């Protein structure tokens, strides 16, 4: 039983390491393209968030240093933030009326 646990642990560690080591320039490019597209949509709605800018800058910095694991992670974070700001803008397009003083 103990052997099974140990083997499972090793397999999980190996899988995690493989996943972390898997990020490449191409992965970063794809993640960055998705994040930038979402950020552009937020800009069109005039509803960008400052943390999105920060995450995009961090992703570029990590990619420039060759740390694609971090770069991909930051780009994905930026995309998630940009999508949240888009959702906020779309929701507020009508929701603001509920807050008006009557």
């Amino acid at each position, binding site marked *: 039983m103990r052997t099974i646990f140990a083997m499972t642990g090793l397999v999980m560690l190996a899988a995690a390491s493989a996943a972390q080591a898997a990020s490449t320039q191409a992965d970063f490019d794809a993640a960055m393209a998705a994040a930038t597209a979402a950020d552009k949509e937020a800009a069109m709605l*005039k*509803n*960008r*968030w*400052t*943390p*999105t*800018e920060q995450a995009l800058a961090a992703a570029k910095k990590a990619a420039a240093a060759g740390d694609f694991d971090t770069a991909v992670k930051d780009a994905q974070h930026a995309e998630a*933030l940009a999508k*949240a*700001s888009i959702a*906020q*803008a779309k929701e*507020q397009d009508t*929701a*603001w*009326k509920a*807050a*008006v*003083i*009557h």
Partner: protein
Amino acid sequence: MLRVIAVLIAALWVAGACPAAAADTINPDADFKAFRDYFTKKFPKVPLNDFVNGPYSMDAGLRKQWEAIEDFPPYDFAVDRGKEMFGTPFKNGKTYGDCFANKGIGVRQNYPYFDEKSGEVITLELALNRCREANGEPPFSYVKDEMASLTAYMAFTSRGKLFDIKIPNDPRALAAYQNGEKYFYSRRGQLNFSCASCHVQSAGQHIRTEVLAPALGILAAMPIYRSEWGSMGTISRRFVTCNSQVRGVPLEPQDENYRDVEYYLSYMANGLPISGPGARP
């Protein structure tokens, strides 16, 4: 029988639809009354004209500090500088006064206004830069320094005059007004705050050490010297920093949305006195 049922259904549909339609109608006069009632009922001890003093109308301790500050106001240098700039001719010999009614003296209370020719809201800051450009001068930054000095002087010449913002009978003016109202009440930034979150729902409460000013009359003291900034700032600067504080990327100063929200807030302040330039913590 079928016709009777159809008429009944139509009547019910109309009755149901009417409240929704009424809610969507743009009615600045009704908004004005509701806005004023909200603040005067929320703060019954605050005299109406005192709302223009922002946090000092909400907190006795702050008010004492402000009264002491007013002995040697930190905005004085800006008024002096603005006066000098205002009277100095451009290279073509004309002055700022040539661009404004009454030579620009005592006119702050009429800004912003809706320009029916261009179909847009014209703020005092925009009018000043357009005046410069029309006379062959480069525009100033909208947020501080020269622009703050010029608007400080113009506000000073208008002290005590009552906000008199008009919404002409023009659907574009009503649309600008409503866009300003929408901007004021829309949540933005990662913190998901609207202007109203702080200046309506939380007016008078503390945010860290600061007392949140009520939205009623909030622009009357502009431009202001803020201790936090260590310098003067314009209305543009105030909007930009508000957006940043809720983790939103600010718009360009004098973006249409900023001008429209200034139009909305100034209309809500109609009848209140100009108190600018001001000093704030």
